[in-house]
């Protein structure tokens, strides 16, 4: 269909300002948080109701026009990268909180609602929405569902998939589905889980019922510095081995610590090889008890400095650095590239050693922030996009880190999604049979492949061309030989 015909069709039920097609209007939508990939869409549609979403999809379905969903565009894997001859479907205007039910501890919201806005609406009832990505002031709950986003508190409180009850989803053909229920489970297959993390490939999420969690009476954080990254890794294992599930457990390496210290001036130990932040929450009695035990474990694990937050202001200050890791990277370097592998924690020292070696090899600095409790590593490669060859080198460096994560028994993405960015590494993590199953699942919901084409799951042909070897889940070919 001709773009202008499509515009006219959409404008039969959408106001003119909700259907954009002039190039200067399209510009703001050309990329998400991964700005290395850019593409202007043919049309941007901005519906305000589910009914409008349905009608847009029906029209696109009939005219075989690709559709890419977009929430707030903070995604870090190019998931919301537009399609050149497609409609970019922005859910940003569906931003109403439909109901907060303090007794049932749920909130029913539209997909464009910001993550933090839910917690703000629940706060008067002593409740909050637990998953707290660092982007929570900006990112949308619809995007969180599409990426199964996590935050610094997800070891104890779970990811998005653990904190939602019900979804309304519209398929590419324009059919509305009710998935999940008001109870704790639903009959049939677990489509709620299947939808979560499906990167806008299976349907458009138009309504979400989330669980709300009671706010803890108190939280306190221990900040421990170590002169050796291995000791910090062991400290994490020791805390968990002692039967403690901390509310948050984060690690930063020396480069990261220095970068954030320059930015937020928290007073982090700049000589330390690694800083650990370990938080306890609960009742006052519980927290006092747990903090005492954590302190003792850090000491026994060889911490060179231990500080415990004395009040809420100091607790937030300790966290401020960790939460500002990305902007801090942006200050010390013109550009940075954030990776997102997960590994079994026991392999931390080995993988970090490998990253260090690659860093020397490529001549690019890399700072590491780490959701240490659950093994989710965010190496931030620092580079300058204006230096010829650096973007390519950076991408190669990143790809090698991901391959290393697979070899260490982990995965190429813990929370940011595959998107367009890690599509080649999918060929390493999965066999062609497994990829076929992913394509089959996609076909159940979207047989013509019109939703977010080219993302999340590579075609088998692409894998053949990429020539990636299927690294067989951590079973190294020569396990006896040192790897990195």
């Amino acid at each position, binding site marked *: 269909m001709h773009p202008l015909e499509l515009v006219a069709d959409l404008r039969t039920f959408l106001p003119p300002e909700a259907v954009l097609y002039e190039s200067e209007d399209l510009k703001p939508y050309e990329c998400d948080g991964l700005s290395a990939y850019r593409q202007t869409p043919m049309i941007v549609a901005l519906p305000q109701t589910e009914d409008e979403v349905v009608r847009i999809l029906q029209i696109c379905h009939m005219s075989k026009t690709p559709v890419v969903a977009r929430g707030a565009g903070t995604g870090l894997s190019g998931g919301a990268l537009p399609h050149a001859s497609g409609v970019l479907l922005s859910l940003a205007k569906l931003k109403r909180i439909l109901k907060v039910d303090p007794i049932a501890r749920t909130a029913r919201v539209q997909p464009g609602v910001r993550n933090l806005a839910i917690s703000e609406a629940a706060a008067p009832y002593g409740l909050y929405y637990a998953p707290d990505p660092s982007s929570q002031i900006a990112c949308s709950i619809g995007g969180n569902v599409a990426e199964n986003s996590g935050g610094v508190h997800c070891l104890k409180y779970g990811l998005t998939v653990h904190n939602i009850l019900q979804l309304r989803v519209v398929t590419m053909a324009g059919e509305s589905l009710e998935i999940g229920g008001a109870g704790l489970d639903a009959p049939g297959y677990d489509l709620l889980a299947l939808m979560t993390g499906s990167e806008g490939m299976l349907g458009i999420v138009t309504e979400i019922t989330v669980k709300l969690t009671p706010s803890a009476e108190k939280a306190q954080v221990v900040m421990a510095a170590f002169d050796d990254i291995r000791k910090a890794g062991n400290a994490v294992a020791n805390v968990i081995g002692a039967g403690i599930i901390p509310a948050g457990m984060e690690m930063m390496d020396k480069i990261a610590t220095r970068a954030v210290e320059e930015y937020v001036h928290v007073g982090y130990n700049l000589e330390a090889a690694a800083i650990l932040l370990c938080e306890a929450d609960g009742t006052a009695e519980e927290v006092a008890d747990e903090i005492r035990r954590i302190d003792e474990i850090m000491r026994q694990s060889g911490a060179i400095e231990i500080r415990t937050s004395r009040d809420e202001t100091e607790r937030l200050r300790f966290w401020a650095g960790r939460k500002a890791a990305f902007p801090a990277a942006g200050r010390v370097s013109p550009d940075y590239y954030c990776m997102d592998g997960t590994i079994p924690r026991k392999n931390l020292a080995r993988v970090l050693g490998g990253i260090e070696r690659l860093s020397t090899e490529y001549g690019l600095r890399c700072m590491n922030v780490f*959701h240490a409790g659950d093994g989710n590593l965010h190496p931030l490669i620092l580079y300058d996009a204006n230096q010829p060859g650096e973007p390519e080198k950076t991408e190669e460096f990143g790809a090698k880190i991901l391959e290393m994560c697979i070899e260490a028994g982990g995965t190429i993405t813990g929370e940011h999604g595959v998107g367009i960015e890690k599509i080649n590494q999918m060929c390493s993590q999965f066999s062609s049979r497994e990829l076929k199953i992913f394509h089959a699942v996609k076909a159940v919901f979207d047989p013509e492949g019109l939703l977010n084409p080219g993302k999340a799951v590579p075609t088998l042909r692409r894998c053949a061309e990429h020539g990636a070897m299927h690294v067989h889940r951590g079973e190294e070919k020569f396990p006896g030989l040192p790897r990195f």
Partner: protein
Amino acid sequence: MQNIIDQFADTIRTAAERKAPLRICGGGSKEFYGNRIVGQSIDMLDVTAYSGIVDYEPTELVITARTGTRLADLEAELYGQRQILAFEPPHFGATTTLGGCVATGLSGPRRASVGAVRDFVLGVRMLDGRGDDLHFGGQVMKNVAGYDISRLVTGSMGTLGLLLEVSLKVLPLPPMEMTLSLQMKEAEAIEKMNLWAGKPLPISATCFCNDALTLRLSGTEAAVRAAHAKLGGEKVAEGTAFWQSVREQTHIFFQPGKSLWRLSIKSTTPPLSLPGQQLIEWGAALRWLISDAEVTAETVRAVAATAGGHATLFRSGESSVAAFHPLAPEMMAIHRCLKEKFDPMGILNPGRMYPEL
């Protein structure tokens, strides 16, 4: 162990060629649950030989085991490291396997506070209806590479594939548990369960039956004692045995021989007016109903649907009533399509969940 997998794959491929249904059999403990498999001359595929723990690192909070492993053995291994399957799966017999636990997706008393089986499943290895050996998810806590097939197959009653290995997140044993009992009427109990669930209290299980609300507190000694002081109530001496009886349905409420309905509904639903006796769990989101024949399946299901949920005929002598709540037509269409993708010949536990699957 690979030779066992090869045998399983052979059996599946042969069955697929002949379009002959297979009945995947774990411990045989949940035979009563779900629907009867449809078809003639159903061959049995016994998974119990494929057993044993593949990998367990307590400090990683992850265990990977073969699905023929007895749940009791797995839990004993965890207990030795002071860790647990936090979702407290019911066993319903000594022979229960990990495969049956994940395939049925059933969780016990701690479910409302920590989550269900599906919340702890991190990865699976399985054979689909073509006999293809597939891995999804992994052994790490966070993983969003590819669609979440591991959770999709959890609770699918063996209709999407034969599970071979499962990785689960485990949690530490709470340092202290205390069981309390408070006398009150049903409406008040439902109100209290919801109210308390909205407070930062370490409540890990609830059960209302016979005008008594029983609560379990789990956590550090300080937290448990403080919560007891806030909530009041009599300490129950045999707390562990009580929760075991609720989990395994040996509690006196679960009289054998009668129809047992399981209504999973919105927790704030006031007392349900249905004939028979009820036992309430999961902060009032789960209502068990023992009823005689006087109430029809349609009535029970309509009541559950109105309360935002669904009803399962959990145990019954009646095979004419479908075990699981009917799906909306558009949802059934998706289910059938998914089934066809995983099991094109329709040979894996056909009819066990729904006649169409």
